[in-house]
């Protein structure tokens, strides 16, 4: 299994995602530069957290025009799994791969805090290793993570079992406590909490590994034989 971690100018959780999949999960992982027109031979794509293009205009609004996003649209349309974390989720809604929008937190402040999130469906490549209703303790770290959509869209997301994760402590004001949603094809997941920050016991927990290892297992076949060299 090979993960590709996209690097936009301003991505700052790219290395964290790469480290979690390569060193905590022992999978192959490589970075994909934002102006790359192709994704190479990766089996799954992670859009990491950060501030792509400075998040000027709107979070994720400029990133959607980068060359790599055309490749990701195509990859997703063909059923390839795409995981957008935090800023990656914002990019996915701006791109239209996921519905709705992410706006300023209800309290208007950036929030960095670990809290409980409930797995709402195990019917996806990202959550099949979890138990339905399983509580994951995952960190959030964002200023614009309040998920909004019109009632019809929210009803549809729920009706189609596409709400993947819900906050038990909703601090950003997201509608219906939504923390993560799936695409219609269930192969694109956008989530505000950071699974890659909960992938190492030293960092206070490993609940995030459920998401990453679900993905790894779904595409198991070739596991990395050795750890890649670590650059400081």
């Amino acid at each position: 299994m090979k993960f590709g971690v996209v690097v936009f100018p301003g991505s700052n959780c790219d290395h964290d995602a790469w480290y979690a999949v390569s060193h905590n999960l022992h999978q192959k992982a490589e970075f994909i530069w934002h102006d790359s027109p192709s994704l190479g031979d990766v089996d799954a794509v992670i859009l990491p957290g950060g501030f792509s293009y400075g998040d000027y205009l709107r979070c994720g609004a400029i990133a959607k025009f980068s060359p790599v996003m055309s490749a990701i649209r195509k990859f997703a349309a063909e059923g390839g799994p795409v995981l957008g974390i935090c800023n990656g989720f914002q990019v996915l809604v701006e791109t239209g791969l996921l519905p709705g929008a992410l706006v300023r937190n209800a309290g208007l402040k950036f929030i960095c805090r670990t809290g409980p999130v409930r797995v709402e469906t195990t019917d996806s490549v990202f959550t099949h290793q979890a138990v339905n209703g399983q509580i994951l303790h995952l960190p959030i770290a964002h200023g614009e993570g309040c998920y909004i959509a019109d009632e019809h869209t929210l009803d549809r997301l729920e009706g189609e079992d596409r709400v993947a994760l819900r906050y038990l402590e909703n601090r950003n004001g997201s509608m219906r406590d939504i923390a993560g949603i799936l695409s219609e094809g269930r192969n694109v997941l956008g989530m505000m909490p950071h699974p890659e920050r909960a992938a190492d016991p030293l960092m206070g927990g490993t609940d995030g590994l459920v998401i990453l290892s679900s993905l790894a297992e779904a595409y198991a076949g070739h596991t990395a034989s050795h750890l890649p060299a670590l650059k400081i």
Partner: protein
Amino acid sequence: MSTITSDVIAAHQLTQPEYDKILSLLGREPTFTELGIFSVMWSEHCSYKSSRIHLKKLPTQSTRVLQGPGENAGIIDIGDGIAIAFKIESHNHPSFIEPFQGAATGVGGILRDIFTMGARPIAVMDALRFGRLDDPRTGERNRRIVEGVVSGIAHYGNCFGVPTVGGECVFDDSYDGNPLVNVFALGVFRHDEIFYGKATGVGNPVIYVGAKTGRDGIHGASMASAEFTEASKQKRPNVQVGDPFMEKLLLEACLEAMKTGAIVGIQDMGAAGLTSSSCEMGSRAGTGVEIDMELVPQRETGMTPYEIMLSESQERMLLVAERGREDEVLRVFAKWGLDAVVIGEVKDDGMLRVKDRGKVVAEISNRALADEAPLYNRPFSKPLRNAPLDGPAVHSSDLLGDLKRLLESGDLCSKHWIWEQYDYQVRTNTIAGPGSEAAVVRIKGTPTSIAMALDGNGRYCSLDPREGTKLIVAECCRNLSVVGAEPIAATNNLNFGNPERPEIMAQLVESIEGMAEACRFFETPITGGNVSLYNETLGVPIHPTPVVGIVGIVPTAKPIGIEFENEGRDVILLGGYGSSDAEQFGSSQYAKVVVECVWGAPPKLDMDYEKRVQTAIRQLVRARSVESAHDVGEGGLAVALAECCFGEKGIGVEARMSSPLSNEFLLFHEGPSRVIISTAHPDAVFEAARKNSVEAVRIGATLKSRMSVGNRTETLLDCSVQELKDVWENSLEHLLHTSVSVE
């Protein structure tokens, strides 16, 4: 061109003797551009002219120090071929004028100091000082400053992608007209990746990279070298505007460009911008630097050489590349979408030569600017002291009520409202973050973690700058020892008033001497730092506020927290009850918050005993013989015990002591060298105490959800943990969002 009159000289904050020195160094009258260049380089901020003589007293060397003061940051060897670079710097004046941008660019500036050396920043901490939030006269303004400063730090650090892992925050009348924003940053690299700010190699190209130059921040360095007056409000345009996204690109591009091997020297454009970077790089290398103003990327039209040289526009770097290999460097910056332009070259004549449209507009020896700045041995008398020696007799009728007042006071309450706005986890290295005894950040790919803490105590230092400063060094080292780390090096930020007043200068001198003594004793050389003087508004100085940032190393492991983990554990006071008297008690938080007046002297410190307590706790934590450890600091034993109860599990304590101290002193005195431990292995604790010849007193045991404290047969405190925690946890938010009306 303006003629240089005495008014022009005064407007540049140069004295007549200083101007005379310029005349003799040049052998002629300076041009207007040259006058500007001298004025920023010889400002207090850049030249340390009032403090340099005394800073020499500080210890700066050890076997681990690879780079001491004088570079952009100090560098320390941490083993395995890895080094860390770290420094603290103030952005006090800009943060008062424009809190959000002032604080944001403070973060930006110190981050550049770290990555200009080749290190990737992995942690930031902040020491903040504000006026009181509940003051009916100034509270509203102070609350606005807090909001602005905290969101400015969050804005810059979060976007840049460096975790803000700790710090401290104090509210006091003394900072009412002069808040302090001191930012510490730390980076990591390999020994063979270190870069210096040296313009070596005659003929090598000088390259400008990063943001374009605008008119922002002109004379920022001289602004930071003067007192505040009503007219200072007009200095708002002097405050720079930060762009953390640009800085993130600059970081990645610089580190990538350094890997090409084509860069020979690099320095950020911080205070005094293009001026300081060019002449300091030349001065360090003993070379000349010639630059052409026409080639400097500009975002405003019609800028004069004076403005370009003095601009403090953010996110810019100056570098020198190997001749013939400049394209390798330029290509990396182009990849990151950044301006990178050759604006001049290294010369052999030791001069800073500034050209504009074919004309030389400034020509000064680099050495004159960087190394021959005036040096003052300013007169000093006895340190300024406003507090009385004696205070009222302390007798409490409600000890629990007093504890609650302390727990909800601005200085002692939970600061989660602040640090939850900071991304303290990005880069996934933070194994102990804000709210811990000391922050601990692992270095991936090595068995080592870095522990770091900031400490300052203006109240102690206002009563005795020498002893107060020794206490903060001791406390900072204690914080590190409590997480199992060995303190190895320090950085300092000296925040004081106007050094031209002998009683303020005396505070500075005594504080530096106290710091020198303590840093020598604790073997934590000062490898760099910052001096911020003229922290006065309308003639009222701040408390003398030295802040130290100390770093230590610890084998990477799951950290031991401050909070009790399990019921039924022995609670031991390592170091013993300590001692106090009516005079020392006057410096406590109890005096400040409950008695509402401060008097006397700081607590007495026995450095030798302190060091032994630190050795004992470090051994115990590393051996994992304890489940929790928390030092007794401000607020004394009662506040520290309460904090030990504020864990997620809500484990409380029943303490029954046997001390000859009065109830008030026992609960609230702030004597150093004490650590509260909970343990399932009390014998190991007593054994470590015996070996290190320090006291260890079993004071009680942990239990479920209640905090009960007694002395001999008397119960002094008895309360549910939740009730205390509610007071402590939500106080800052209340203080910030309750408006106080003037009666």
